[in-house]
């Protein structure tokens, strides 16, 4: 185990066209671990992704597995490929998105390795910090595995530069078509809007919004600020907005420069997804709402008056 040369394999998240932004954060985590960084691009007709990945700063080589069986990133097929490729590495990383969280534990189990979920800090090549209990505690854990399987919480690592690298691209084969699952469809409701996970400003609504139509008020403010719209679980559960807008312990974890929480009470599970934001604004008519305890600027007001006023002031 001690004789292994340190090397990182980062699994690239992509849509067969572009490198997903989350991957750039995982590359930075790999840089902090140290050693070479290779990227694995698995997909179908995805050579453009490999070419873009080769330009990411600090990358040594890109392994491209271009095959129909990887087209939709089905966990069974992709995990078998990761197992084939991982053998030469000390660290295998992916972003802690639904892509990484789905496939990495499967690959880890096949390799008989533990997974270290959602690291927020690299202490040393074998020691990492990860949040537990909805971020109310931070655990420092040391791994004894010879291959460390890691998912990376993006907000705690800056994105690697998308230019500056000149890695080689090597076509590889491997992995099996397990024939266990097949992709049917994907419903994306709002692809014309700013991406919630990378937005500098986020305007989120909660149960206080009362219905989906009222979210148009938030969209209007967001459009003026170049912001993304988010939501609490209560707003998603009530059917006001689709699930991909959910911020929190079991939704997306984000850290924009500015987070504006409108009609959101500030439950532990919601705070878990946004309390690392640089500046937090809360608009709520209940001065006792827990959201005010984390807000830099609190406005105790009826949102149906305050939000149109805010819109007009921008």
């Amino acid at each position, binding site marked *: 185990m001690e004789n292994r040369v340190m090397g990182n394999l980062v699994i690239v998240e992509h849509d067969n066209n572009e490198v997903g932004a989350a991957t750039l954060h995982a590359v930075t985590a790999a840089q902090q671990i140290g050693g070479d960084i290779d990227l694995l691009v698995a997909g179908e007709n995805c050579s453009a992704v490999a070419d873009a990945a080769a330009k990411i700063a600090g990358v040594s080589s890109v392994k491209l597995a271009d095959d129909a069986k990887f087209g939709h990133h089905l966990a069974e097929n992709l995990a078998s490929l990761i197992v084939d490729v991982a053998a030469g590495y000390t660290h295998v990383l992916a972003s802690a998105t639904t892509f990484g969280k*789905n496939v990495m534990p499967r690959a880890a189990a096949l390799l008989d390795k533990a997974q270290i979920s959602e690291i927020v800090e690299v202490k040393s090549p074998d020691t990492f910090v990860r949040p537990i209990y909805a971020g109310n505690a931070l655990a420092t854990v040391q791994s004894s595995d010879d291959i460390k399987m890691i998912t990376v919480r993006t907000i705690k690592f800056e994105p690697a530069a998308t230019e500056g690298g000149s890695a080689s691209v090597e076509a590889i084969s491997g992995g099996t078509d397990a024939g266990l699952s097949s992709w*049917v469809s994907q419903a994306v409701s709002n692809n014309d809007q700013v991406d919630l996970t990378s937005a500098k400003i986020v305007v989120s609504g909660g149960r206080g919004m009362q219905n989906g139509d009222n979210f148009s008020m938030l969209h209007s403010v967001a459009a003026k600020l170049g912001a993304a719209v988010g939501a609490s679980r209560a707003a998603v559960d009530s059917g006001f907005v689709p699930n991909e807008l959910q911020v929190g312990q079991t939704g997306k974890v984000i850290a924009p420069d500015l987070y504006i929480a409108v009609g959101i009470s500030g439950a532990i599970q919601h705070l878990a997804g946004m309390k690392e934001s640089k500046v937090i604004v809360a608009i709520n008519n209940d001065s006792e709402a827990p959201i005010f305890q984390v807000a*830099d*600027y609190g*406005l105790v007001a009826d949102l149906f008056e305050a939000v149109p006023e805010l819109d007009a002031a921008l």
Partner: protein
Amino acid sequence: MKILVCVKRVLDPQVKARVKADESGVDLANAKMTMNPFCENALEEALRLREAGVVEEIIVASVGGGKTEETLRHGLAMGADRAIQVVTEDALEPLGIAKVLKQIAEQEGVGMVIAGKQAIDDDSNQTAQMLSALLGWSQATYCSEIKIEGDMATVTREVDAGLETIQVKMPAVMSADLRLNEPRYVKLPDVMKAKRKPMDKIELDSLGLDTANRLTTLKVEEPEGRAAGVIVNSVSELVEKLRNEAKVI
């Protein structure tokens, strides 16, 4: 078909975790514990599959010591047919838990396993995927809709981009998201009935598995808190502060 539902005992989601002064972990002494909410969704789905005639028998299983039995009794009160506790006081990692659950799934000859998508204490989000890998079965995580027809299941998954629909071959391991269903409330007569339902206890050591942990927790700390902010009196004051003080707009 028999179904295995994996459940975990966790700190009640309404309770804020407190870190121990010696930084060895989170203080759970006398804390209110419940069944992990996602596991309730998993069990509720199993109950509905039984009501729909797809499933004949529901087994709830949990790996843990102490009062794990309470959590399993809650599962029986919700309507599971019988329970299995794999008894250990060790805090197994998801890989170890998956190895144990694999053995249970095979011994019981179940046709499907459903777990929660993540436990709200360790937030690992691993166990179902690992179990699926070890069994060599198909995998469907973060389910918000499950339809089983013969030896195929059509599953809608909550993913970052929205909703993804996949088809998986049975047997499968699935993990439940919160919007899969609304778990039922347990009524008092059900609690009484649950006391008479079968509860098997298996010592972890008797399974002969390598469940050794790979991670050592060096310390558990409280994160830095946020400094208290200010209350502004008007929208115009807010906008002024965001522009000139925080400089974020």
